[in-house]
């Protein structure tokens, strides 16, 4: 294996890892604030991709410029999902919670298939195309843009959580719901906010992906398992942990593919996942 291939692989792993991180940030937030595993998170990403695609196909708007719009749409969807379904299972047994988000996952896939058919779609002309050559390694510009975008949004969410009053209220609710309520924080509002932001993050990730990844109703399936791994490795509820873990998982995935063959890529990540569950269930940056 030549040195170039190794560096090239590491670089592409890093870039896809940043996207994984952004998907996982939304998931980790929902989990951290209300202890619910959102199986439909990949479908938020899928809707983000379709949102970008249709804005591009119908109004010739580039996915990069419509990101705020995509984020807004997905924020609304996240809040809606919380209000209509999740708010009703907060006190239900874990099985009910799991199956409600699981049902949402299937429902969203079904709706996408119904509205847009199972075809693969692509955004074929985007503002950023082509490759950049950096010190001998080739990087796709769309991927590079997506990676930078993912970092910016992740850091943005982190700053929101640590530097604003609303963010502090959200963190307080995550830490102790009842104590937060006594301080006058409306936990219902905070849960809805977490779902909104969580969905928006996945939507932005979808928008960033849409310029170089095929768009189809089941595209979320490619990301949800990996997002679980990232959330777990980073520590449930930790945004910076998710960023770190996302990069790590991206790199491990491509390295596994390089060494064992691409068909074992996911298996390598899942074995890592099991190992983390066994030996450090609280993750890299999670609280024990």
């Amino acid at each position, binding site marked *: 294996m030549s040195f170039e291939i190794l560096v090239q692989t590491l670089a592409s792993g890093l870039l896809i890892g940043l996207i994984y991180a952004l998907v996982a940030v939304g998931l980790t937030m929902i989990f951290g604030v209300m202890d619910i*595993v959102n199986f439909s998170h990949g479908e938020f990403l899928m809707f983000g991709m379709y949102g970008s695609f249709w804005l591009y196909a119908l109004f010739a708007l580039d996915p990069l410029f419509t990101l705020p719009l995509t984020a807004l749409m997905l924020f609304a969807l996240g809040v809606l999902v919380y209000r209509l*379904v999740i708010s*009703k*299972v907060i006190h*239900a*047994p*874990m*099985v*009910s*919670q*799991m*199956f*409600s988000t*699981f*049902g*949402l*996952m*299937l*429902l969203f*896939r*079904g*709706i*996408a*298939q*119904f509205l847009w*058919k*199972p075809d693969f779609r692509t955004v074929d002309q985007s503002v950023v195309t082509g490759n950049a050559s950096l010190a001998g390694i080739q990087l796709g510009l769309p991927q590079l843009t997506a990676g930078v975008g993912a970092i910016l949004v992740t850091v943005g969410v982190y700053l929101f959580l640590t530097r604003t009053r609303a963010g502090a209220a959200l963190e307080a609710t995550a830490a102790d719901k009842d104590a937060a309520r006594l301080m006058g924080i409306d936990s219902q509002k905070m849960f809805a906010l977490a779902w909104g932001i969580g969905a928006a993050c996945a939507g932005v990730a979808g928008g960033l992906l849409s310029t170089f990844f095929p768009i189809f*109703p089941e595209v979320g399936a490619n990301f949800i*398992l990996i997002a*679980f*791994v990232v959330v*777990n490795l980073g520590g449930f509820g930790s945004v910076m942990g998710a960023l770190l873990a996302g990069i790590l998982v991206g790199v491990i995935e491509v390295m596994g593919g390089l060494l064992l063959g691409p*068909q*074992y890529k*996911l*298996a390598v990540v*899942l*074995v890592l*996942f*099991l190992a983390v*569950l*066994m030996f450090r*269930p609280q993750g890299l940056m999670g609280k024990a």
Partner: protein
Amino acid sequence: MKGIEMSKNPPPAAAMATLAPPRLRYGRVLVALALLAALALPQFVGSPAHQNTAILVLMAAQLGVAWNIVGGYAGQVSLGHVAFYGLGAYTSTLLLTVAHWNPWLAMLAGGVLAAAVSLMIGWPCFRLKGHYFTMATIAVAEIVQIVFTNWEFAGAAVGLTIPMDEQGWAAMVFADKAPYYYIALGLLALTLLVNFLIERSYLGFYFRAIKDEPDAARSLGVSLVRYKQVAFAVSSFFTALGGSLYAQKELYIDPVSVLGTGLSIKMALVSILGGIGSLFGPVIGAGVLTMIDEGTRMLFGGSGRGTDLIIYAALIIVIAVYYPTGVVGWVRRFAQRRQARRQRKAEGEQV
């Protein structure tokens, strides 16, 4: 962790009464009648398509009952049970086609292997709580699927075929559907019987204690991991038998049909729909789910636009949100309310 061992004697009757699920009146008569009806069914339903639907219901029910042991009674939600189903199907088929084993014996071997694997997985995984365990089972199933999809010896993505040249009970291969129906019924009855025995023994008591009061159970010296493992192993064993039966019935298996993620969901869903942690809940759930499944597919499936998927999904959400105790819980609540009303009436008369 080495605690004080709890005595193997059944716990006091009073404790049993509060933890044991309430029973329907005339339960035994109902069971006997249902069994008779099930035995007679192939005599009245001649069309192979309808017989096939009946087999599908029985097989789904058997898987649900098996899942319920660990997912319902012990409360450890596995969404990776398809791994054991696939292991059963692949083990029996490989033993049959490569080593020329008797299929009944091969089926048993598949069950034993699956139980052994479940012990290996369970040992580390049962130290995890709630979501973590569920996610671990998803990951394990996914890994098993990837391995079998790429394993040349096991037919890789192409799959394995069981030859049809030997037929009859010894080969467990039949040209018509009725024998498969009886095997499926027998397997379901066996799984129910084991479940019933567990429910009444100290094991069932421990399982429910693990589910409802894990900390109290541990403080009494019940080894949580050990009894979760017992539940998991029994559940995996019967799930694998179901997988082998599927292989014998279809005479063809591949990673999609016996290791697909959707099947894990279905096993859990059958239990949840019928009534999680109740003996006959999964049987009812299997009947209802198969009807909905086939019905929506017949009505809307042809469009290829996912209408059947939307209805199926909407149903899952409605059940999860509004009927978390399933059909059985719903009936029980109804019966309780009626009883309360009667009691009130009786008291009113006394006054």
